[in-house]
């Protein structure tokens, strides 16, 4: 017997939660890829413990994967879940508070024995899955996932450990059934992944189908749920993670410019995935795993000196180590792209959690007067555009450029309208030529109308020159301690960066009104939450607008004008108030801050509440 009623929903937030060894990340990403295949818009939020294999069953060992998918535009992974899959007691305990009343709760009852209850700090007399009051709020699917998996594989010849490892496939199969989705995509994936381990492949497929069929046979739900394809703009799409998009953007830079790109990195969470991705593509770029963060950035500088494009990435603590060298690149006026996939600080902080607290570091975190352009991506897919734009600025304006992403963007994914690299904007490479020779001598600091200097690469006869970190005479580049010249060079470098404002797009109101009571101004990964919150408030009739900065230094030329159109400026940030300091200093406006430093993104409701508070207090 099969169910033929199907409920149509615009969008769904689902959370898979289990032990870090339960394969929740794989389950979540497989469900995501399938949702993408079905044409849904989506946003993901993987949330995993800092420990690689945290002890089984513990609260701090819970690994989660949250996905919001829909037939309308999706901007955030969602505040609350419609569906929660809890593989054990700890997963339930840490997540139940975010399950919507009336939501669907899928429980692996085998994860609720005495041992699991104790580890999750539940009293064994208070087993939550027997708590009628708690459960009455939700639609409950209690399934003995571990037992059913073991039964399905009893003849597989696999050991119990291996068998238990595939129970996530049961949950995935079951959820596929619940949302009327085929298991094909995951079956293909498994085939490829386990091509050399046919036994494991067969076991996974079997459990996946068992989970799916279990849904059909037990008729567990009164109806399944249908989420139709989203009406995205025309184009070819794929689902992409932020770090992957950064890697692809770097490949696009190499392809478009024809420059030798050297990507030099040192392993650090959550930036390492960029190196993982790029290491596969030595046909396009050169990757170099350096001995430390300093070597990574300096090797990149060496490559740029050699006429390639040096790129390096890290997270806050690693960027701190690179700062002296970034200062050198500012003084050398050399193209260099530095990516900071920010994480919660200070110091080692919470490496797997997100934060936006390195903006002031990017702005000011170097000795001396060392201005450089700062860009920030606002979605996983936008990371591709941002890194390409950063490379273009670095080359055309002969300057290091800092790109800010964060753990939430780097690990999260969103649909990306795939771009044909042949159609990306061209990049002019300011190589030195005869115009830069005066009296037979090459002038490495002879500036063009942008104030950027010529790039003379070793091997070019007649252009031999020495540059360094010591103060240099303008034009000749010779070492100079002349007081006036030093002031001139500091001002020229500052002006050079300011001039970039003429080459970047103006800031636009993304949602709401262009003049009104309140402007929400954001930057970076908060885009989705701010966008959804402002859209809701505007729908409710508030005179509210939303603008989001992708260029943080220099700011878009029209920013001051945009700010002047509103009574109040609200600047929500996942830090203790950083952009707000710069905005106040630069435009002398009394903006209102909203700050969160919990390692978690904003929820839409937090923003809406803040907006309402501001308007109430008026």
């Amino acid at each position: 017997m099969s169910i033929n009623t199907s409920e149509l929903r615009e969008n769904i937030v689902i959370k898979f939660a289990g032990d870090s060894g339960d394969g929740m990340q794989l389950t979540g990403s497989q469900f995501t890829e399938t949702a993408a295949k079905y044409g849904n818009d989506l946003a993901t939020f993987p949330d995993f413990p800092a420990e690689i294999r945290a002890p089984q069953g513990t609260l701090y060992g819970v690994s989660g994967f949250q996905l919001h998918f829909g037939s309308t535009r999706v901007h955030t992974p969602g505040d609350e879940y419609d569906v929660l899959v809890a593989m054990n007691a700890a997963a339930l305990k840490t997540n139940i508070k975010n399950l919507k009343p009336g939501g669907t709760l899928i429980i692996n009852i085998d994860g609720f024995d005495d041992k699991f209850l104790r580890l999750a700090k539940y009293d064994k007399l208070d087993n939550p899955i027997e708590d009628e009051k708690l459960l009455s709020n939700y639609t409950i699917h209690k399934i003995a996932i571990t037992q059913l998996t073991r039964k399905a594989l009893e003849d597989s010849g696999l050991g119990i450990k291996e068998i238990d490892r595939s129970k996530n496939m049961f949950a995935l199969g079951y959820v596929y059934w619940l949302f009327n989705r085929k298991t094909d995509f995951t079956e293909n994936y498994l085939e490829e992944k386990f091509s050399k381990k046919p036994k494991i492949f067969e076991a996974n497929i079997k459990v996946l189908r068992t989970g799916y069929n279990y849904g059909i046979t037990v008729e567990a739900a009164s109806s399944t749920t249908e989420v139709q394809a989203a009406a995205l703009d025309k184009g070819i799409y794929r689902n992409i993670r932020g770090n992957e998009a950064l890697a692809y953007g770097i490949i696009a830079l190499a392809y478009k410019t024809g420059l030798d790109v050297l990507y030099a990195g040192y392993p650090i969470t959550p930036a390492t995935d960029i190196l993982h991705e790029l290491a596969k593509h030595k046909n396009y770029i050169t990757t170099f795993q350096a001995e430390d963060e300093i070597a990574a950035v300096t090797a990149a500088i060496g490559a740029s000196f050699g006429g390639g494009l040096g790129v390096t990435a890290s997270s806050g603590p690693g960027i701190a180590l690179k700062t002296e060298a970034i200062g050198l690149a500012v003084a050398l006026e050399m193209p260099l792209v530095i990516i900071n996939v920010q994480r919660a600080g200070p110091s080692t902080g919470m490496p797997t959690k997100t934060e936006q607290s390195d903006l002031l570091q990017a702005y000011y975190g170097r000795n001396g007067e060392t201005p450089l352009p700062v860009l920030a991506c606002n979605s996983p897919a936008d990371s591709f555009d941002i890194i390409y734009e950063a490379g273009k600025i670095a080359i055309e304006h002969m300057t290091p450029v800092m790109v800010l992403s964060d753990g939430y963007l780097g690990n999260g994914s969103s649909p990306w309208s795939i771009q044909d690299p042949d159609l990306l904007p061209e990049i002019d490479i300011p190589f030195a030529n005869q115009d830069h020779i005066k009296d037979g001598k090459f002038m490495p600091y002879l500036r063009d109308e942008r104030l950027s200097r010529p790039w003379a690469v070793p091997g070019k006869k007649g252009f031999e020159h020495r540059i360094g970190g010591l103060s240099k005479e303008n034009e000749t580049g010779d070492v100079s301690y002349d007081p006036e010249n030093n002031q001139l060079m500091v001002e020229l470098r500052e002006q050079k960066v300011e001039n970039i404002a003429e080459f970047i797009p103006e800031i636009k109101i993304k949602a709401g009104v262009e003049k009104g009571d309140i402007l929400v101004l954001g930057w970076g990964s908060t885009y989705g939450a701010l966008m959804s919150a402002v859209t809701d408030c505007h729908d409710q009739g508030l005179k509210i607008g939303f603008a989001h900065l992708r260029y943080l230094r220099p700011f878009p030329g029209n920013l001051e004008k945009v700010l002047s159109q509103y009574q109040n400026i609200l600047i929500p940030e996942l830090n203790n108030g950083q952009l707000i300091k710069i905005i106040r200093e630069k435009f002398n406006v009394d903006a209102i801050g909203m700050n969160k430093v919990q390692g978690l993104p904003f929820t839409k409701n937090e923003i809406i509440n803040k907006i309402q508070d501001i308007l109430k207090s008026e």
Partner: protein
Amino acid sequence: MKTRPGQSTKGVSSPSKSYASNQEIRWCPGCGDYSILKQVQSVLADENIPKEEIVFISGIGCSSRFPYYLDTFGMHSIHGRAPAIASGLRAIRKDLNIWVVTGDGDGLSIGGNHLIHLLRRNFNMNVLLFNNEIYGLTKGQYSPTSPLGTVNKTAVWGTIDLPFNPLKLALGADATFIARGLDIDPLLLRQVLKRANQHNGTSLVEIYQNCNVFNDGAFSVLTDKATKKDNTIVLEHQKPLFFGVNNDMGIILDGFSPRIVKLSEVSENDLWIHDEEDSLKATILTRFFDNPENDGFPRPLGVLYAVNRPTYEDQLRGQKKMAIEQLGQGNPYELFKGKNYWEVK
């Protein structure tokens, strides 16, 4: 025959003056750096390397001013990082002739990590380590090569830090070429520099350099006419080890222990024969003077060790070539698209 970067292409050499830049040299008068600069210029000329193909990269310190005085490409970078900068440059530019100029503070203290990693990777470049056993530019603090008990501004009670033996350290990092020269022995220094330049891999040349302002005479026992012959030994490949003011002293290897002998007491055939490719012997040579039991041993000069091992950049190119053959180098659109894409019409 294909020439390596840094190998002469013609029989004629260029005048060494043409490698000098127009910059006024700012080292203290009498500093050992002058002689080193001169020998380097002369080797570049002898080897007839086109100026535009040469890159000198340095860190911070007196020695690191070096690139300014050569009319080649150059970068005076930040403290200790020259090996890493040069590695990045070499990773994408196999064609250049690259030199790193560093000192005992720059290369062994603040930049020690980069130096050992450069050596193990074996990027092709020449590293000139000016060892003056002192910090000169900051005016006289003890360095990682200052002998135990050195008394100076930051070691008022004498140093208690066991000094590094740079060449021993380099061997520990599996260097493929180590050599030692003296600032004031131009002939030997030129020979060593030439060999270093011709070596395909990282060549580490330790150059004892007199800082006549803050550590004058640190190496006088090795350089003064009266003591030099008894205290140094110039190594030559496949030649026996003998030394001494009358060339009457030799060294034999007794198992793994070196012993000094009078030539009158042994036949020349029993002497230790220098073999540049023998890493065990090279290890013993590097330890001649840092082991108190070996007191009285002469300081080895010349090429201690030279072997061939694939360079990092050659292996990197091999991998790139393979990747290009397998994956192509065209428009990466298909890569971006992946397998799991969909179309919105």
